[in-house]
């Protein structure tokens, strides 16, 4: 296959793998990173930094499991979706395997299932766990697991799908939204696929095949004939020529650029197809490609609420209750575990309207106000960690903040505004007070952080 966009990016002296590129990689493959993590990635170089993203599950996962099992019973028995959302937000905030979590969120938006109908929080958490576990691997395996997933069965009325009266809901969405996309199958295919999935039920929190109501007859599906069952339908759909393109486009949209042109999508589709729809292998290529580091991709997306909120927390080391986070995500239009419908979240510009942008601006300005003081359990934004209390120069402070938030990419116009803002009091410049009064200075610095987080430039992800 002739490569163009997925030609590997080879860093050299003229175009090195610098802090901006490293931050871009860590942002897109996860939820952002603090200065130390960015510097570490630069030190390792592109190849090793990408390798790290795909490191296998390890002690951290076992630690999470232990914690989860300790409080898991409470979570599940309480049946409160809010608590489950907070649990997932907590994982996003603290995990070392950010890509795995980012992918789980991607697949959650793809196989969009809502707790509002499923209601059973145990089922929802199990589905998310399936997406996390199988998300990086074979798409075919993932799709099959989702077809057998009890939350999905409840969500798309699988339990009502019986041979006497097939329920088409899952079969339709499987083709339209989950695999090959609209225009690549007929209404008849939907009906036949529904027959193949009859009896694919759940019993409690487990998959249960109900043979008594399964239609074992011959079906005609996508031009083939056979006594197909759900697994066969999944095989045929994942082998459908339109499927690699459909999924690859979504992966590009989520990890690379909001409107990838057709030729890029075609190359990506070919690549995904050659990996036999293995998401890990595809992403490995994408994250080391010229396209990924081109201007089309660099800061070209609009941060989703999760990327914005979790990104700020991870970049600045903000400490706050995961339950607070969940409330902000909802106000910004992204309720974890409750996508608006089976199509998931449209994303990009659709995230932004007056309401949700107002929510982002309100959130941005609230961050630096988190000053725990003596009480270490209060929410806290550790401004002192990136702006030392003894730095008395407005220019130096602005430069430090520019490095943390933008890897130095801040217009001179904006820098001037910020330096002026720092030293300006109600009656005019107060340079003396700014230098000598540490309390006053840090208050202004905190306000400036809030202003910078609210910049449109910061939301350009």
């Amino acid at each position, binding site marked *: 296959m002739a490569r163009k966009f997925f030609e590997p990016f080879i860093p050299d002296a003229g175009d090195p793998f610098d802090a901006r590129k490293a931050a871009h990689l860590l942002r897109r493959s996860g939820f952002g990173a603090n200065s130390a993590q960015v510097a570490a990635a630069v030190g390792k170089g592109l190849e090793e930094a990408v390798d790290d993203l795909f490191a296998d599950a390890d002690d951290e996962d076992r630690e999470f499991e232990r914690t989860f099992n300790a409080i898991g019973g409470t979570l599940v028995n309480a049946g409160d979706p809010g608590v489950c959302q907070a649990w997932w937000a907590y994982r996003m905030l603290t995990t070392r395997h950010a890509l795995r979590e980012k992918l789980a969120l991607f697949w959650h938006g793809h196989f969009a299932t809502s707790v509002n109908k499923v209601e059973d929080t145990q089922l929802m958490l199990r589905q998310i766990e399936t997406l996390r576990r199988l998300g990086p691997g074979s798409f075919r395996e993932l799709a099959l697991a989702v077809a057998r997933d009890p939350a999905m069965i409840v969500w798309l009325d699988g339990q009502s799908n019986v041979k006497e009266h097939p329920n088409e809901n899952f079969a339709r969405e499987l083709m339209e939204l989950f695999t090959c996309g609209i225009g690549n199958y007929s209404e008849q295919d939907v009906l036949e696929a529904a027959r193949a999935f009859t009896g694919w039920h759940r019993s409690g929190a487990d998959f249960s095949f109900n043979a008594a109501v399964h239609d074992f007859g011959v079906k005609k599906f996508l031009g083939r004939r056979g006594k197909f069952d759900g697994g066969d339908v999944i095989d045929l759909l994942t082998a459908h020529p339109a499927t690699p393109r459909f999924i690859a486009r979504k992966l590009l949209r989520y990890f690379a650029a909001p409107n990838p042109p057709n030729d890029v999508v075609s190359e990506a589709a070919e690549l995904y197809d050659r990996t036999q729809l293995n998401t890990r292998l595809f992403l490995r290529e994408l994250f080391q490609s010229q396209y990924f580091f081109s201007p089309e991709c660099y800061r070209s997306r609009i941060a989703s609420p999760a990327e914005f909120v979790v990104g700020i927390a991870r970049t600045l080391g903000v400490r706050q209750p995961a339950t607070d986070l969940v409330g902000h995500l909802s106000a910004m239009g992204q309720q974890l575990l409750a996508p608006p419908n089976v199509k998931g979240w449209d994303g990009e510009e659709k995230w932004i309207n007056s309401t949700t942008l107002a929510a982002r601006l309100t959130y941005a300005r*609230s961050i630096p106000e988190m000053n725990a003081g003596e009480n270490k359990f209060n929410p806290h934004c550790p401004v002192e960690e990136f702006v030392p209390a003894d730095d008395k120069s407005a220019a130096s402070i602005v430069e430090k903040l520019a490095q943390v938030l933008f890897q130095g990419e801040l217009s001179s116009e*904006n820098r001037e505004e910020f330096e002026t803002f720092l030293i300006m009091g109600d009656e005019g410049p107060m340079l003396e007070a700014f230098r000598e009064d540490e309390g006053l200075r840090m208050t202004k610095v905190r306000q400036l952080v809030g202003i910078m987080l*609210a910049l449109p430039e910061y939301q350009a992800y």
Partner: protein
Amino acid sequence: MNASRREFLGMAGLSFVSLGAFGPRLFAQAAEESAAAANNDHVLVVIELSGGNDGLNTVIPFEEDLYYKNRRTLGIPKVNVHKISDGVGLHPALEPLAELYKEGRVAVVQGVGYPDPDRSHFRSMEIWQTASTEKLPPADGWLGRFIDQLPPNPDDGALPGLAFTGSLPQACQAARAVIPVVGELEAFAAAEQPAQREIALRRKLSTRAGAAKGSVQFLRNQAASVYRTVDRLKGAAEKYKSMVEYPGTPLGGQLKHAAQILAGGLGVRVMYTSQDGYDTHSGQADAHAGLLGDLSGSIAAFDKDLRGLGLADKVATVVFSEFGRRVDENASAGTDHGAASCLFVAGAKIKGGLFGRYPRLDKLGEGDLVFNTDFRSAYADLLQNWLGCPAQKILGSEFPALKLV
């Protein structure tokens, strides 16, 4: 917009100028239209029923045996139906709406749909929202197009359209205008602390002019819209004084908020609301009744409020859904995606009554009701006769307008 529409709109000007003898008359007509448009302050409120409302159980053909044969458990007994004609009646939960119908304030349009119906929520909703059945529909919506063609308002804070839904519906996407989603803007306004210098700088940087990358420019436009809207809405709530009680539901809340803003005299022309939950694949009976009860209670409260505020003559409310549902009920006491359904328009100035024809239950299309009234005929009527805007420009082709207004 796709290329052919762009061409169409570009060409229209040329052919107009070359008409010679017909020129003066058409000029006069255009001038009249423009004057009418300038004086028109009518408001259109849209209620979207999300999920596919079962029209067959909303406007019920209670004399048809086939209705009861197909709706073995979901059929509404004749005695419970609110009859509005010899053969057709409303679901029992729509009692308040039936009352309004008796007063001549509701138009019920039967058999509404479009050719070659699509049973996918997203595709069918897209068709209704863009008013286009083209394979590559325009990105903007019919209401967005209406707002884009309004004469530019010298008042920079004009709010010609508002959406009360969680996200901006495609119908309100415009090529130029930015239609805000009202939602929790009040929360944002309230959160602004009196740190004036900080607020001023944030506002300045969020909305700064000058060249910027695509996404940044988009965000700046949106930020400008936030500040503008907040400024405008601050006064509206204070002007609203009403004792009318709305249902304590999301729809009730949206319509109440709409009434509040109408009372504030902000010059809003289009208001978009929605009610979710109509995708009743299983256990439809109770769910549907609950939704319809909420719908008619909310519409009745809104109508009462408008009357009290002296605004009833200025507002028309259209109620639609992306498709109806299959005639034959399924094995889960529910119904699957269908095609033709009903559409309502309510208002003081509406010609009440029954419009269109009830689709035949013995002549279905792939198990679904077949439409006889294109939804764009309703749009054409509302655009031309209610909002005072030439419909063909917005809809792309000619659709014979209904006469509901």
